[in-house]
């Protein structure tokens, strides 16, 4: 049954009114509980549209969507208490004038009892490493900190699914690292759909979906996808230096310089073995 999956889409199609052609057409995929899925593809490929369809901010023209067992188009509230979205711009996602109040916002909407709310807010703030920031005002925080506050706001609700819509796109490198570290810490405990332009953020994803022109053109593990030079080129995906070098040298997929060095060494050892013979 498809409904045991955390996220399942079948033949999902959506067109914006007045847009050129469908933003998404015939997209089907599934994400099992605890899976970590990456979504990449060129701008206008349909990545953000997908996130909005999964959260009920948009309703599909046709096709079937289930998130945590609910249809986001007909029961958005049920979906939203089980699937949190982390948006691109942390500045425009925080509602309340204080960190603590903002983290509580989702719980307030759910009508959670006040005593329980306090416990869950404190826990969520600790989980993103911002203890002591409860009374800080959002505009005094760095981009990475704001995004972690937003993440705490989602975690407080205790969602089964996290939808990350390019959460690091507007952050500086340290901010990106902070946020990614917290997101990594959630692996396995939650189903994560991570939309990004940075392929290196998805090296340890379970699978990566490639959306281009509204179509799902690939759904594969990262090692496989990132070794396919043609696929990368067709979808305007640029690997970071290290794995690109490995691919260009005809070596297996490497994440870090150390892995690359090992692969090079192994290859030269094999080659010298061949020469010796």
């Amino acid at each position, binding site marked *: 049954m498809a409904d045991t999956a955390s996220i399942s889409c079948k033949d999902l199609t959506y067109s914006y009114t007045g847009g050129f052609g469908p933003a998404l057409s015939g997209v089907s995929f599934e994400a099992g509980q605890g899976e970590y899925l990456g979504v990449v593809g060129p701008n206008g490929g349909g990545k953000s549209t997908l996130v909005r369809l999964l959260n009920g901010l948009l309703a599909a023209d046709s096709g079937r969507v289930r998130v945590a067992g609910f249809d986001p188009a007909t029961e958005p509230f049920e979906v939203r208490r089980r699937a949190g*979205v982390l948006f691109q711009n942390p*500045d425009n996602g*925080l*509602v309340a*004038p204080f960190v603590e109040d903002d983290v509580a916002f989702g719980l*307030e*909407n759910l*009508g959670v009892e006040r005593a329980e709310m306090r416990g869950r807010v404190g826990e969520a703030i600790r989980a993103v490493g911002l203890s002591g920031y409860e009374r800080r005002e959002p505009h005094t925080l760095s981009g990475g900190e704001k995004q972690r506050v937003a993440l705490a706001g*989602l975690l407080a609700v205790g969602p089964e699914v996290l939808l990350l819509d390019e959460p690091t796109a507007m952050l500086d490198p340290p901010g990106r690292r902070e946020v990614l570290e917290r997101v990594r810490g959630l692996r396995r405990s939650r189903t994560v759909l991570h939309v990004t332009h940075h392929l290196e953020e998805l090296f340890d994803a379970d699978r990566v979906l490639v959306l281009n022109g509204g179509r799902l053109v690939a759904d594969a593990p990262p090692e496989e996808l990132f070794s396919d030079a043609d696929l990368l080129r067709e979808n305007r995906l640029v690997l970071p230096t290290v794995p690109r070098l490995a691919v260009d040298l005809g070596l297996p997929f490497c994440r870090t310089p150390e892995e690359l060095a090992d692969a090079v060494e192994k290859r030269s050892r094999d080659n010298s073995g061949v020469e010796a013979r």
Partner: protein
Amino acid sequence: MTAVRGVGQFYPVASPLHALDPRAKVVATALLVVGLFFVDSAAGFVVAGSATALLVGASRVPLRAFLGLLRPVAFIVALTFFFQVFFLREGPTLFGWGFVEVHEGGLEMGLLLAARLLILVTTAGLLTATTAPVALADGIEDLLSPLKRLRFPAHEVAMMMTIALRFIPTLGEEAQKISRAQAARGADFTSGGLLARARALVPILVPLTIGAFRRADELAEAMESRGYRGGHGRVRYRELRFRARDALALLLTILVVLAAVLL
């Protein structure tokens, strides 16, 4: 950043006034303000004025903060005072000098009006200086909630206040950023007459407004995706408690207002 937060803003210290329920403070302030319009004797103003002075002392907010608050109204106070002194010609003449005449009635009226204005502004300043803006919004929501039956959007008003408080500094920063960017392109905000300077603000206001709309759009999406459905079924994180001391404060306020009005 400090430029963005105007005078009369929340002054976070611990004091008996800070500890009061914001609803009690809002009601007390309203009583004082309305009551002031019915005070018409010097004795009444002495009562109201000394009560206000006592409250200022109890608030532990430095006097300087209040003086800063009074500065913008000082001109209006002075204008009102001199207008009454020179143009109200009632009662015996105190002195005359050419066409300038000062009558006792004018002096009295001038002093009363000036006192009324000063006490009014100080009282309002006391409320905002001792009440955190979020608490103030919550208090106002509660006080307006009976009007929900008349379809008055009490929750929405409070939510708007909260969001405004959240975004004032953000928009202030953005305005600063834009004005620097425009200055770098040769915009001049400091020279020319009033009209020229107002016109120079247009290249700041246009991008700022467009930016605000984009923010509003994204914020609405974020709120919706976090399950916001308006005030219905919502539980507020912060709890307001009306305690005995709040009742006492209200009672005292009523007594002071009555005394000031009746004297």
